[in-house]
């Protein structure tokens, strides 16, 4: 029930284009969850303090609770729903479930995106580098150990599969 007029917002999410009518002050978090049914994006504060709402904008992490949907127009957005392709988990997701890195799972969608951006830039991070990279993503369940294990395991597997490919191709 707002006096402000709604505006047209067009978002590109996980390769799909969605156009919605929303108030100009609506956050990306709200649009994703409440208008596009992409509830995999979570929230723990809506104040930029927990990173549970993290999504990727042109491959870079942003906090959707601090991003207006209007600002997200014209960018390629990725949410957790867009990570596994055709039902196949990524090596990180696979390592994550095997390592027990998800307990309640509430931090998991954002954590997976956050760690994925690390692996995209650094294929062999140390445990400390992993800890540094996910420091903004709060998890209240795991004590982070199995999350770091998962990222390490995924990095190892991804490196091995690249080496495999190189070996096969040369």
């Amino acid at each position, binding site marked *: *029930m707002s006096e402000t007029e709604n505006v047209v917002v067009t978002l590109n999410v996980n390769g799909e284009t969605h156009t919605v009518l929303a108030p100009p002050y609506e956050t990306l978090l709200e649009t994703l969850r409440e208008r596009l049914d992409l509830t995999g994006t979570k929230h723990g504060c809506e104040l930029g303090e927990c990173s549970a709402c993290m999504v990727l904008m042109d491959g870079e992490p942003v906090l959707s609770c601090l991003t207006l949907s209007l600002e997200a127009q014209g960018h390629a957005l990725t949410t*957790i729903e867009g990570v596994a392709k055709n039902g196949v988990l990524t090596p990180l997701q696979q390592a*994550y*479930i095997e390592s*027990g890195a998800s307990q*309640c799972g*509430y931090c998991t969608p954002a954590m997976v995106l956050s760690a994925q951006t690390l692996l995209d830039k650094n294929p062999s991070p140390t445990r400390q580098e992993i800890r540094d990279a996910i420091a903004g993503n709060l998890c*209240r369940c795991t004590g*982070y*150990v199995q999350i770091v294990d998962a990222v390490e395991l995924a990095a190892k597997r991804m490196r091995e599969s690249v080496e495999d490919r190189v070996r096969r191709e040369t």
Partner: protein
Amino acid sequence: MSEMRIVGKPRTKIDAVSKVTGAAKYGDDMMLPRMAYGKLLRSTQPHAYIRRIDVSRARALPGVLDVITGKDLPIHYGVLPNNQDETALAMDRVRYIGEPVAAVAALDERTAERACDLIEVEYEPIKPLLTMEDALAPNAGRIHDWTRTPNAHKIVSLEFGDVEAAFGRADLVREDTFLYEGNSHVPLETHAVVAKFEGGHLTLWSGTQVPHYVQRALAQVLNIPHGHVRVILPAIGGGFGGKSEPLSFEFCASELSRRTGRPVKIVLTREEQFYTHRGRHPAKMWMKTGVKRDGELTGLAVKIFLDGGAFSSFGIASTYYTGALTPITYKVPAYKFDGVRVFTNKPPCGPKRGHGGPQPRFGFEIQLDKLAEDLGMDPIALRRRNLVEPYSTTVNSLRITSCGLSECIAQVEKGSGWQERRGKMPPGKGLGFAASAYLSGTGTTMWHPDLPHSGAHVQIDRGGAITVFCGSAEIGQGSDHLLAALVAEELGVYPEDVRVVAGDTGITPVDLGSYSSRVTFMSGNATLKATGELKAKLLEAASRVLETAPEELEFGDYEIHDRNDHANSIKLVDAIVRAEAQFGTLGATGSYSPPRLGGNYRGSVIGTSPAYSFTACVAQVDVDADTGEVRVEKLWVAHDCGRALNPTLVHGQIQGCAYMGVGEALMETQQIDGRGLHMSPSLLEYHLPTSIETPEIETILVQAIDPEGPYGAKEAGEGPQNPIVPAITNAVYQATGVRFDETPLSADKVYRALHKKKGQRETTLTIPEFRFPEPERPTPREYYGDCS
């Protein structure tokens, strides 16, 4: 038992994929057609009479559907039967800032919020009592009129043996005072509920740890038949004890749905979460311990003051627990416990991971550390001198069965290089030790002590689909997975083949919920019982086909075979068809009740458990003398969980406990200021350890197989939290030579202590003035004869 296929092996949780793909649906992910949004208006006063509430302007706001106040939900409730002291909305008086006063339903959340702003409440302030000292002062007012001694919610005084004589026998006696600050659970997901009232029947989706208790309370407060209430658990984003009792918004959403004819959702903000609280009680403690020269403990006396906040919650249990759990690790021949829980005008405290254990454990393990030093003994050697034995009885009549404490201690001692490294580390670094014990589920329930604590139903259809129904609450700890794993082990399938329908009071047998670390043990046993009945039928049917006695048969991979001749086998699904033909539809219900335990005194059942887990921890810290910053560099935690049903999950639980301990040791406090306002009601201000402050945690599983646990399993979800804080604090002493008898070890506190000017006055810790009654002196009850 033939070799186990599932139990004891690391396996991926059955619900893990839904968590990494974002498919899992949590409370706020529920969207129902025509759903309205609810918001609560909360008290701005710590203590006041409500003289007038005017909701007319709120009602008039376009988009507002309804507004309710205290008189619309006047029936009292409380999680314990003898403390029904809460109403969904304050009636004529508020007792803490943040107490819900009115609730609004509107077409959208923003409108509901604006409507709350339009409600006028006229308060007549009453002097707030914000400290235990104020609340116990001779002419203090009363927060609740029904307490016998003003503001003393629960008083417990017990003496086992003669402590004065015990101190007389001692070569050395120490007295210390400790302060353990309160702190909050802060699950990453705040509370979220959706209520749908339709045709006189209510369905509530709530992220609660206790669906059964919530169902009971909803029926009571909404005044509808118990059977018309169905509580369903969505995925839950963590609980840690903070979601383990019926809470205001559950009633408000339900009542607003009844009135508006629409589903109503209420999601708390992070700030509201901090005011809802029910977290760890701040505790002021006095402890006195006597030892002989060789380290033998002669007696222990403690006085504990728990700052309970404004309502009862689990407070009676909290009070008893702070007394009951201390003597489980070491033989204490004489023990005196005085405890009181005090009402103050602050958000109510309740159970948080380790309920009642961490505070006295903190004091006792630090006091033992000091005694070891006074005696010139190694701190671990002092504990070893006094270890409880398996199959023994404690001084307060608690029955101990399996006990791997000695092995836990040996493991962390070895892992950390304690003997080689302690005392030889560079300045600023140190190692510290502590140990503890915890319940595998409470041995009692206050509502219906004679009824089972857990029920499970298992059914198998003719195609081989296996389903377990259990009222247990999956809160991230993996309880659904464990039930599936147990059934899979029994029937020769895999956990992924077993559907678990849990936490739905409309269709699952009653289980008391996820608290007191009870689910693996109790729901596990109930599930095994039900499965056992079906197993017998399947074996009977297979026996006819294989012409072999049922006793000679066993379950293999999707088959039943002769244990001496595996080729003589029948496919599981064929055996199922045969069994259904022979016995009719295959379903069985099992239940679990703990054995009747406890001593010869009132309240003695609190602290009983069918089995105890044990933990030992060594912490390594680095203290920066220039900043006062304490860094926990590493934790070694060995935990006796009985059989580790799924080691991956057990390691995860121990690590989660250790992490939470680091937070409580170094930074977390729920501080309420002199006006009754929370000083840090956000994630930025209430500091939580991030992946940087959390150290590497080396977890070691010690598996003292328990005779009564499912496959010998005990708990892992709470116990390991208990020794972490004292181990870290003892390590800080090793690193700096300065003792801290209080939490948390924030940088400013440590800096000030390290840079104390000569002659600067010590701030001494105190306990409130209070006269405890003459203690009850129960005669001991022995379970396994004299254990000495």
